[in-house]
């Protein structure tokens, strides 16, 4: 943990890339497409229900990644600490839920 955390403090504050809007436009379109696919899968109705659920989950995960990466800037440099903390949060919550389900209520 120590190595890449070095000088993170100043990095978070100062690093605001002046990249063009293209990537954000693409991300925005991608978000909308993901949403449309999800809507369409439900609206179409004819599709197998369990397939729809899996599709929705996949779309949701992709959506979260786009949101975090582009709009919360987690893909940029200097965001290691938020990523670490979020990952640990998922880990703690996941441990609690999975352990409770599969060890404790075996």
């Amino acid at each position, binding site marked *: *943990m*120590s190595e890449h*955390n*070095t*000088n*993170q*403090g*100043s990095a*978070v*504050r100062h690093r605001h890339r002046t990249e063009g809007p293209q990537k954000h436009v693409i991300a925005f379109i991608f978000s909308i497409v993901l949403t449309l696919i999800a809507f369409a899968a439900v609206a179409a109705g004819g599709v197998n229900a369990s397939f729809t659920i899996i599709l929705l989950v996949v779309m949701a995960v992709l959506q979260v990644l786009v949101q975090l990466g582009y709009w919360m800037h987690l893909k940029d440099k200097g965001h290691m*600490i938020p990523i670490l*903390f979020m990952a*640990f*949060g998922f*880990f*703690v919550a996941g*441990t*609690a839920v999975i*352990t*409770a389900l599969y*060890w*404790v209520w*075996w």
Partner: protein
Amino acid sequence: MAHAHSVKRHTGLMDWLTTVDHKKIGILYLIAGALFFGIGGIEALMIRWQLIKPMNDFVSAQTFNELITMHGTTMIFLGVMPLIFALMNAVVPLQIGARDVAFPFLNSLGFWTFLFGGILLNISWMMGGAPDAGWTAYTPLSTTAYSGTHGVDFYTVGLQIAGLGTLIGGINFLATVITMRAPGMTFMRMPMFTWTAFITSAIILFAFPAITVGLVLLSFDRILGANFFEVSNGGNPVLWQHIFWIFGHPEVYILILPAFGVISDVIPTFARKRLFGYSSMVFATILIAFLGFMVWAHHMFTTGMGPVANALFSISTMLIAVPTGIKIFNWLFTLWGGQIRFTSANLYASGFIPTFVMGGVTGVMLASAPADYQFHDTYFVVAHFHYVIVGGLVLGLFSGLHYWWPKMFGRVLDEKLGKIGFWFFIIGFHLTFFVQHFLGLMGMQRRIFTYLPGQGFDTLNLVSTVGALMMGVGVLVFLLNVVVTTRRPADAPNDPWEDGRTLEWSIPSPPPEYNFKQTPLVRGLDAYWKEKMAGHTEMTPAEPVGPIHMPSASILPFVMSVGIFVAGLGFMYHQYLVVGLGLIVTFVCMAIRSLYDDHGWHIDPEETTEKGVKA
């Protein structure tokens, strides 16, 4: 002041109610924490007095249940946690070369919500009886079926409000350590106390949401008639135990890690050596925090989780002994060959090591699931957790208070009284709790309000009570020391221990409100020691002298907390008009804070030079 806008500066009581200065908030935490610590201590003495002889009738069984519940809850949530925050506030910004915490306003808000939560919990004594279901509030004992009075409601609502303050404080210190370090202060150059404060804050961030959810569910069950823990309606009482301990076990690491940090700062200073194995200390701290989230079910071996869960939680629990052992050996190797001075602070630190090891060893014993069936809910457990919390954390707190008292108040605590207090406290401590191991093994159950004669419990309980009284004397000697010292002139030098290694000793005691006239340049671990060894008497500044930006004082955090307090009290008694009123007060304050831009104010360079304060 050269600036056009003048700043209203409060004095007296108003200054303390509105302050956003981390040093003053640290003192507020210290006073409030000491107050609750005193209340919890009196409750402890009453418990011990009831148990001094068989069939005693000093208090009734009901009062005894209230006493043990409030002793545990008060000590953990309202006593030692604020004292930890007191040290963190007083020291962490100074150790990283910062002028304040990242969010001074939130710092104040965190303190006031904690205080009002604590007050709400404690007024239960005067409002129909305190909580009486144990500090763990296990369901179904804590549901309305078995706790019909409002006692446990005070527990759920009071802890919810106090927990809000703790969460705010934890997030604040995370942001502070990540973003406010002075130039050159890399993560691996941070003093150990700052490291442990950082990791403790991270544990708070991940553990407190669990208790928040648990308390919401329990208060919904009790106040709104929900059925989360009600078996007859499909609920599950064991669920509460899981939620409580998913929070509760990380909580004990929240408590002990800052004590580890204090010891890791005190021992190098008074052994005149750099800390042995600094990077392994950092690694061990992180590992303890990490493993701390995977062991909660060892509190529940006897609930019938089955052999798989019991075995795996046993192993994960025993694993924690590894990083803890690394720490113990590092402290011993730091002392090894050092020029040791046994000041009061170092006495407490040296007393901490063997005492904490004893608590750790009984911890490993308890981690063994088959043996735990024998130990569970006996005085063995009581002895174990008092060894780690009192013998660990409280000794660490006293060590830290003696060590940093001059930095907080400008006066060095009296060494003679400090040592007398230490000997009373540590001898009393071992008398009280060492014998409880044997009481537990002989079969004395935890939380019983009295016992029959002729079971071999009589003498050991008497010894235990005598020890508790000695601990009380030790604490009184400390208070006497504070009074005596406060009457002396505030003449502590920058570095009263002369061997200070970290940044806080490079500035006056107590520091000016802006801490550092010029932000220091950090050139290595033990930044101030490094400068001393290079022949310098002060830190190299990292910036020219300039105006210093300061946050504005504000009464809003206090008013917001009053609003939450009123709303909480109303919720308990189903007075939803009162709830609405309290929440309106809080939300109006939030709106004012959000809509009104407060840019703070500046201290001019001339003003800082007049005081003759160097970086």
